[in-house]
């Protein structure tokens, strides 16, 4: 039970069987995810987009938090892998009627699902589910509290790799509400593992977590300092409720200090790219001229999202299958020895 999240997601021989966090995964494994996603991008451009890798498998979208965009890309990814998909909008059903998370899980297990795609408001929820469900059910983390959103991070890595040739040696700045961001955490781990020269976070003290350097990044309070020499700028979405919690005075002041304008963009390298996990608040974290400008790759990110999710789902399913085969083989050996 007391195992590190990064290890729970691997089989004995280091293959992916769940995808819970980018923390602690090897460079080889992260690169394999990106390579696999690259290969799916080409299938997405064909007239017939489906591949049969998950044929006969049942994928359950288990969203305890509302999300249309992430849920639909997972749904599309599962369908393009030929899986059967069930969408459960738990945010509005069972747990709100007092059923515990464990009860929900036991019910779903009884339906013989092969994979859960989980989004939950609690950090560690996907990890908890991975430890509690029966073996051979793959768990894909679609966002747990402030902890991790690994598929979003990997699609961002794919975006950087496709637009900047490589992540190695790049200076990357993540701007805005780092404190509440599961995306930022997953990005920082992936960027460091994939060889980024420097990962920076830029924001006011109220929106940077305590001991930020524990994540493996450098903290900046001013855009003027943090954007210097940057190859990649990742803007994060600012939630409206931050203003009510005494974390920020106003959207206006935030935009003035941290909103990405053409002027601030000019501080970075001339060929820097601008990214945003979406949905964008125009005029809060980014101005339209930049969001729709030449250096923005925001829309490309969305289309890579499906390929990355297909990659992760197929890899985790094959890891589960391998583990199952090994267990069966071990069982047969035991019988023969007996």
């Amino acid at each position, binding site marked *: *039970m*007391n*195992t*590190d*999240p990064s290890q729970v997601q691997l089989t004995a021989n280091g293959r992916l069987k769940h995808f819970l966090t980018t*923390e602690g995964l090897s460079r080889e494994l992260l690169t394999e995810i990106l390579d696999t996603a690259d290969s799916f991008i080409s299938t997405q451009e064909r007239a017939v987009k489906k591949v049969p890798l998950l044929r006969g498998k049942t994928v359950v979208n288990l969203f305890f938090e509302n999300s249309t965009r992430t849920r639909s890309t997972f749904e599309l990814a599962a369908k393009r892998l030929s899986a059967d998909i069930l969408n459960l909008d738990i945010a509005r059903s069972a747990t709100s009627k007092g059923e*515990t*998370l*464990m009860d929900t899980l036991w019910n779903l297990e009884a339906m013989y699902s092969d994979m859960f795609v989980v989004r*939950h408001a*609690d*950090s*560690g*929820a996907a*990890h*908890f589910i991975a430890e*509690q469900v029966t073996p051979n059910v793959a768990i894909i983390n679609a966002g*747990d*509290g*402030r*902890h*991790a959103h690994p598929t979003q991070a990997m699609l961002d890595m794919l975006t950087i790799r496709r637009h900047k040739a490589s992540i190695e040696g790049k200076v990357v700045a993540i701007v805005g509400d780092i404190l509440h961001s*599961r995306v930022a*955490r997953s990005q920082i781990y992936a960027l460091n593992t994939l060889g980024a020269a420097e990962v920076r976070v830029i924001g006011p003290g109220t929106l940077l*977590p*305590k*001991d*930020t350097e*524990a*994540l493996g990044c450098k903290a900046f309070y001013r855009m003027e300092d943090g954007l210097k020499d940057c190859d990649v700028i990742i803007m994060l979405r600012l939630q409206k409720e931050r203003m009510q919690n005494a974390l920020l005075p106003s959207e206006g002041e935030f935009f003035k200090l941290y909103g990405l304008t053409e002027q601030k963009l000019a501080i970075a390298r001339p060929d820097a790219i601008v990214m945003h996990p979406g949905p964008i608040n125009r005029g809060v974290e980014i101005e339209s001229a930049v969001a729709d400008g030449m250096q923005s790759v925001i829309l490309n990110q969305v289309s890579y999202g499906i390929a990355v999710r297909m990659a992760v789902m197929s890899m985790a399913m094959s890891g589960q299958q391998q583990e199952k085969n090994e267990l069966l083989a071990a069982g047969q050996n035991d019988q023969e020895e007996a």
Partner: protein
Amino acid sequence: MRYLHIENARLIDPSQNLDEVCDIYVAGGRIATIGHKPASGEIEQSINAQGQWLVPGFIDLGAHLADPGYPQKGTIASETRAACAGGFTHVCALPDSKPVADSSAVIQQVLEKAAQAGYASVLPLGAVTQGLAGEQLANMYGLREAGCVALSNARQPFKDSYVLRRVMEYAATYDIPLFLQAEDVSLSDGGCMHEGPVATRMGLSGIPATAESIALAQIILLAEQTGARIHISQVSCARSLQMLSQARQKGLNISADTPLANLVYTDAAVTGYNSQFNVRPPLRSDADRQALLAAVNNGELAISSNHRPHEIAAKKAPFADAEAGMSMFDFFVPLALQLVSSNELSLAALIRAVSNQPAQLLGLEQALKEGSWFNAVLLDPTASRLADESSMHSKGTNSPLIGSRLEGAVSAVFADGRRVF
């Protein structure tokens, strides 16, 4: 006279400067002689305690017994028996039961149940405010008359400094001791672990050290003003210890304890989201843990169990959703002795912190000396076993130690001369 004779045990009682292997004779509930046979009488029972330690029974300064109100977590009978398994002869019961222990009726019920069960004695801590709501004073005098040894806020906030001031003034009038837990809930709100690098990595909301130290500053200043007798329960931060020793230097008589878990574990234990490590106060940094250990070794800090039993479902949830608390009683001795074998705590400091200091604070007679009531625990430091749920006496099996090997165990507990475990 008919005697209970314990032979060859190593008798250790720092309050008596006692640490030697010798025999002890008990009659009529009291220690008759130490080191020599009584002049007359016969031996009714003899226990050979070769290789074992006989120390004064432990007195717990704060445990959640879950009774009345939470039979799925624990009952007075199950938890006081578990307390004996942990070497405790006396347990201060926190008032956060359901109903809250804010009336003499609840206190009577608790005391009756404890007497009926016949294991560790329960020393009730009454609620300092009605319903622990932090607004109106509970019948503080009446609660003391009903048997409360002190009154506590059980980690519930006071509405404002005004209420806390009046609580202290009223308590000071009748010299009622207050056991206060320092927490500024506006700073800890939503937090489920220590605020620090681990919380940042795990994406869990942190409880800053200032949540404790700011509330402690408020308590210290009002204690200076009112002259109330204050004990700070469950200190977790190094900064709090500095503030306490400064207050003592200024002449304030203020004592404190720390939960055993905070001496053993740090926030690093939360890596892996094991909900058994979701506790209040939270497990802090290693620097905090080292400062707490130093304070115990110096005799400035007592150790409490902060025992809090839970049913399995309460812990089977994502970390932040799991109920806080650890079932401490059953494995208290091996866990504490672990600190002695790692040389982080001296054996004498441990016994002082779990027995001598609490006894002094509560005015109890708990010493290994002739004429005293025989409240003692016989420990076997070499006993080794595997921690499993089925061997636990507490109803709550919420311990991170399940499955691990434990060194050291309680072989017998005596309360007023009667063997209760």
